[in-house]
């Protein structure tokens, strides 16, 4: 059996752990098999909406200043392990950002997966489709 879980990230990064925990919990799905019966699996989907899209800005230098992995790098790690990542198009536009400002791939570390910039309607559909919905 497969169950889908959406991790909807709506919070700004860094002041609190919120958005990072959303992403790291989603990435943890990669090792959940040890707890599940054979044939069972979890399919995580990560969605950035609202202010949460600002987690996806390029060129974050958290490692340089705080010695912590940036949200940009966490997103790249999520793509590396083939997580589905969706970023809300309307919210990016609201901040005057374009696709070029946003991390959508991690080819430099060998990821094939691409983060998709999609209308909120698509994210709405995902929220309807999943078994469990979690906001961070």
């Amino acid at each position: 059996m497969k169950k889908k879980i959406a991790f909807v990230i709506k919070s700004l990064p860094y002041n609190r752990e919120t958005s990072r925990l959303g992403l790291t919990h989603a990435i943890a799905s990669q090792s959940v098999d040890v707890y599940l019966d054979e044939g069972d699996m979890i399919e995580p989907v990560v969605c950035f909406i609202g202010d949460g899209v600002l987690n996806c800005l390029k060129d974050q230098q958290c490692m340089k200043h705080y010695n912590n992995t940036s949200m940009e790098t966490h997103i790249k790690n999520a793509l590396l392990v083939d997580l589905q990542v969706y970023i809300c198009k309307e919210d990016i536009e609201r901040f005057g950002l374009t696709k070029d400002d946003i991390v959508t791939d991690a080819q430099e570390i060998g990821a094939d997966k691409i983060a998709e910039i999609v209308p909120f309607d698509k994210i709405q559909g995902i929220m309807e489709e999943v078994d469990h919905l979690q906001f961070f």
Partner: protein
Amino acid sequence: MGKLTIGTFASLVGSYAMDFAVKLSEAAINKGHEVDLWLSGNATMLSKKGQKSFQDYSYHLKTIEGLSSTGRFNIATCDACSEARGYHKDDTISCCKRNTMDWYLASCFTADRVLMIGGD
């Protein structure tokens, strides 16, 4: 009866969100449901040994131990989040497991309802 999985990373002290998580767990157990409570981030402090009850500081240790004694309540704390805070395995209350985040996801898999309660 169903299973409710609650995840939280709210602080033990200074955030009534943790109080909410514990009280909701208690109400669900009292109604005959199963509850898994997952602690990550600052919430890990709920599972630390040696907590003392002081006026004006949230204290849930006795409640947690009582819930565990029903056999329908599981509590686990994030090992990495705990270690990062200098809180080591031998300092964990006996009714609480230390696990990685995948324990929580596995709990979600078998849950009827999931509630992730955010930070402060």
